[in-house]
């Protein structure tokens, strides 16, 4: 398994290099001049030339790309054109905010969404199922910012229980987490329901029932672990997206996260900020996908066997590995 993880981590390096080259090239050819935007309409051609030179924008594309990649290799993401601050440091400073929001959002999504899905599957086509499915459809189609505003009006303005904006304490994150999760929560609930329905009807669940296990054991010990396998991937990619920053929620609640940083960077054609954010997002995504695959392997022995045999072809070791991991439970 360690071999597999090592291999996957190494594979991330070429992916990140390609992403870096792509985003750098894209930004260079996108219309809009960062210097023009920085200096405004009244700037003289001399001023523009000067700024251009100081930012290194007068050099040819290839040499700019080369030096950007060389800096990246030293984990230097460059300096913002507009703010003059180091992009890497700024990303690091903003990361905890985004992480807090994303982490609690995905926890909220999983802890609420999956049980709703299970209940719906167990009571499929009964009234409670229909009510929940209607609610999740609402949740799925409700724009996050609208819900965010409703929450602020109720809990901050009317009741005064929670702060409406800022990020200086955990209680500041309660409303953003709810607004941020509703969509994915509804989605996960629906997916859990359909995955669970399929599994509940499978032969091995009938076998489990035929052993005389209680309905609770049948659902939790036999059906759920199988039903969760496809849900893990969905949760993983949702978490990846959340870690990329959520512009709308961050803006509504004035959270200084990665989403707003990147959007501001795009608006002011602040190339280093955009490039740095994109590379960060690519890294986060690759990392979360690796994590997802590992959880996947933990839940599904068939996948695990594939990973291990990809690392070593010996059949004996495969068996030993699985047996050992079972013994640890």
């Amino acid at each position: 398994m360690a071999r597999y993880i090592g291999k996957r981590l190494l594979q991330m390096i070429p992916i990140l290099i390609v992403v870096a080259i792509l985003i750098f090239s894209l930004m260079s050819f996108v219309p809009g001049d960062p210097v023009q935007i920085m200096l405004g309409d009244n700037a003289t051609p001399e001023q523009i030339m000067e700024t251009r030179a100081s930012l290194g924008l007068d050099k040819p594309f290839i040499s700019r790309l080369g030096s950007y990649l060389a800096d990246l290799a030293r984990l230097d993401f460059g300096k913002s054109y507009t703010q003059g601050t180091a992009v890497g440091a700024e990303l690091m400073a903003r990361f905890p905010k985004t992480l807090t929001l994303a982490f609690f959002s995905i926890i909220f999504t999983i802890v609420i969404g999956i049980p709703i899905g299970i209940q719906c599957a167990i009571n499929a086509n009964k009234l409670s199922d229909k009510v929940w499915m209607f609610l999740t459809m609402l949740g799925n189609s409700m724009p996050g910012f609208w819900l965010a505003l409703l929450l602020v009006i109720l809990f901050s303005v009317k009741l005064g229980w929670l702060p409406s904006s800022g990020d200086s304490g955990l209680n500041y994150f309660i409303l953003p987490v709810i607004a941020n999760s509703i969509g994915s929560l509804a989605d996960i609930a629906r997916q859990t329901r359909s995955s669970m329905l399929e599994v509940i009807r499978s032969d091995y669940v009938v076998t489990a029932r035929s052993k005389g296990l209680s309905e609770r054991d049948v659902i939790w010990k036999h059906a759920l672990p199988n039903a969760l396998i496809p849900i893990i991937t969905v949760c993983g990619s949702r978490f990846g997206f959340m870690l990329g920053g959520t512009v709308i929620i961050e803006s509504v609640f004035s959270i200084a996260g990665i989403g707003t940083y990147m959007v501001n960077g795009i608006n002011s054609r602040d190339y280093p900020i955009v490039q740095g954010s994109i590379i960060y997002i690519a890294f986060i995504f690759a990392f979360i996908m690796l994590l997802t695959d590992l959880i996947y392997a933990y839940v599904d022995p068939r996948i695990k066997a594939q990973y291990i045999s990809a690392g070593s072809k010996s059949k004996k070791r495969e068996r030993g590995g699985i047996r050992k991991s079972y013994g640890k439970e």
Partner: protein
Amino acid sequence: MSNAEKNLISVEDLVVEYHSGGETIHAVNGVSFSLEKGKTIGLVGETGAGKTSIAKAILRILPDHATQAVRGKINFKGQELLSIPEKEMCALRGKSISMIFQDPMTALNPVKPVVEQIAEGLRRHQNMSKAQSIQGAIKMLETVGISEDRAYEYPHQFSGGMKQRVVIAIALACNPELLIADEPTTALDVTIQAQVMDLMKNLQKELGTALILITHDLGVVAEVCDYVAVVYAGQVVEYGSREEVFDHPSHPYTVGLFGALPDLSKNVHRLSPVEGLPPDPSNLPEGCSFAPRCPRALEGCRKAPVGMSKIGDTHIVRCLLDGKEDSHGTVRD
């Protein structure tokens, strides 16, 4: 048959209906049979005849979402299985009544080690600790010919025959009083088939387990069954002791299945194909459901349902001809 006390299980007028695409599927249409302790009944019949549905109805594990109705009586040791609370049914399942499933490829949970899938039944019914149940499960695996060092593997690491043996081990783990075996040997090669049949016979001898054996293999029926029920379109069309049915097959369908000359001493293994197709279970014929395929069908056969008539000690047949040889026999009402 007459003595109700003697019977371990008696099934009376069992009806199972599914719904599918707005249609009612009449899978089982009034099946009755009974079985004493330690005896074996063979259910034979073509694919789709309703054999598995009968078995699942007894265990009350028919799929909720697809089942429209289950009617009739299933009496097991004085308990009415179709009406007892789910909790009591749970206590019987896997302990007093267990089932070997038809398709071993899908019957095992892919994310649990096989030993655990056997052990959990032991824990449920025999009050064993985790360690004891694992020990018991390993012993069970050895009984069906799987060595201890493969016990912690997952179903995907097993061949079809090995999976079948695990399914059998699960069913036998708690020494059931009634074992329902749904084509238990189809996935196995001949030597293992014999081993598995021996295993079940031994269990029967030692513990007096009654066996409902669903099979396509007439050789197996001839070898192990005390009684035979021939199932056609969800009905028993012929029932009797092994000798009665093999020596005097009386329903035209049975005759067709057994081939021209059925004989206990001969090694007939496969059911012979009968010309034509079974009726659509969502649209059964008014009269005898076999009439459309029957080479000897009479006028009266198509008009009204045909009842059972007694033609031997335990031998009954659902045919207007009552097993008479001549095809011009008089119609009896």
